[in-house]
């Protein structure tokens, strides 16, 4: 417990969390501070490229762990399974419609790459190693949740499926998956050498870019919270705090069963606990246009993301360390 608190305190005092808090506070106070859309997208491309590349280079350096295939499969299963749990919980806890509940569920099965990056930062600062291929697991976990949610909708509403070939392509080739998998591959192929060539781009300034990106996420999250006051009932809000713990515990068990390192277990837990706010919302706009975006965006970005960033990750680190003896 003391460990968790110390870790949480250290975490809360880090520049990245404080940058997020600054953005959140600024937009709750209705400051006109904004980050241009193009700059926000540019930073997200940078972060995805850097994290993918470093993961690939780590795999090149350490050799391919036999567990890779297992971890990928497990990630896909988790991403597909978690929406069912989330959907059930939402139906019990809240009054959301089937469509809204399914849309929200899709977000929690999928992952938030920035939460993943934040967890990696914490691991680095604690000196805890993790498997480089967890980046690939993150990529694999982006999409299955969407399929699960659409399945839930068609089963409960009896409507015909809304998946067409075009949507499949869009989901599987969405920007973050392509960039993450692609840069992972490049990092793997070019290895140490490649990393040496571009490390002063993808490693040294990484934490700083992350600060500005989180500042922007704080701004967007705050704006969302302000505008979603109507739809965010207390039970919905509570779901946003409970679900990461529930999802995370599935991730934790999976990580332990796979025999991942302490860091790997933390990352698997974090992935399971995190909720998408880039790829899944865009897919929902296409596939479930009647679902209310305010609900899923605010839950994911305004509630669960800050929770994971501040309290979640330290908890996952503490628990994983205790259970793996790491």
């Amino acid at each position, binding site marked *: 417990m003391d460990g968790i608190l110390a870790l949480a305190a250290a975490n809360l005092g880090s520049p990245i969390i404080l940058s997020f808090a600054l953005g959140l506070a600024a937009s709750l106070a209705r400051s006109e501070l*904004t*980050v*241009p*859309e193009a700059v*926000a*997208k540019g930073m*997200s491309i940078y972060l995805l490229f850097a994290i993918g590349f470093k993961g690939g280079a780590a795999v090149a350096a350490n050799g391919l762990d036999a567990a890779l295939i297992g971890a990928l499969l497990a990630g896909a299963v988790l991403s597909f399974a978690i929406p069912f749990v989330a959907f059930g919980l939402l139906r019990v806890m809240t009054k959301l419609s089937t469509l809204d509940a399914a849309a929200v569920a899709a977000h929690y099965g999928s992952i938030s790459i920035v939460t993943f990056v934040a967890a990696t930062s914490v691991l680095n600062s604690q000196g805890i190693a993790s498997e480089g291929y967890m980046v690939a697991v993150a990529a694999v976990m982006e999409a299955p949740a969407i399929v699960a949610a659409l399945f839930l909708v068609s089963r409960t509403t009896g409507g015909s499926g809304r998946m067409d070939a*075009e949507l499949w392509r*869009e989901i599987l080739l969405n920007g973050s998956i392509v960039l993450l998998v692609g840069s992972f591959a490049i990092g793997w192929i070019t290895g140490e050498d490649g990393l040496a060539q571009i490390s002063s781009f993808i490693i040294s300034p990484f934490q700083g870019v992350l600060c500005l990106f989180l500042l*922007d*996420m704080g*701004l*967007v999250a705050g*704006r969302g919270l302000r*505008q*979603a006051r109507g739809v965010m009932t207390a039970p919905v809000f509570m779901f946003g705090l409970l679900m990461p713990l529930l999802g995370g515990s599935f991730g934790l068990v999976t990580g332990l069963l796979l025999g991942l390192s302490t860091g790997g277990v933390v990352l698997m837990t974090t992935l399971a606990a995190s909720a998408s*706010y*880039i*790829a899944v*919302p*865009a*897919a*929902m*706009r*296409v596939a479930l*246009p*009647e679902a*209310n*975006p*305010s609900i899923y*965006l605010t839950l994911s970005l305004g509630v669960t993301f800050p929770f994971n960033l501040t309290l979640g990750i330290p908890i996952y680190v503490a628990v994983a360390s205790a259970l793996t003896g790491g």
Partner: protein
Amino acid sequence: METHKAKRVAIIIEAPMERRLSDALISAGVTGFSILPVLGGSGRSGKWSREGQVSRAGGMVQVVCIIRPERLDALLDAAFKVVENHIGVVTIGDCEVLRAERF
């Protein structure tokens, strides 16, 4: 200068639907359209703004299409199939064009 009657159709739609709408217009034989950015707005589903957004989900675009009056119905049919269920706004106005052979 000689001008010709035409219709100006403007469709505001969620950004992730842009490709579907373009494809539908092209399949319906629409020969030209332009896509304009929308920064933000307000409607029954609340206020929004593209500022600081990373996901394409949080935004809309405006598709503008100048078309001969006799081809309007084909266009609207095609557009409506895509826009149905979605939050888009479809407006049609009269205008005149130079160089009618282009439309």
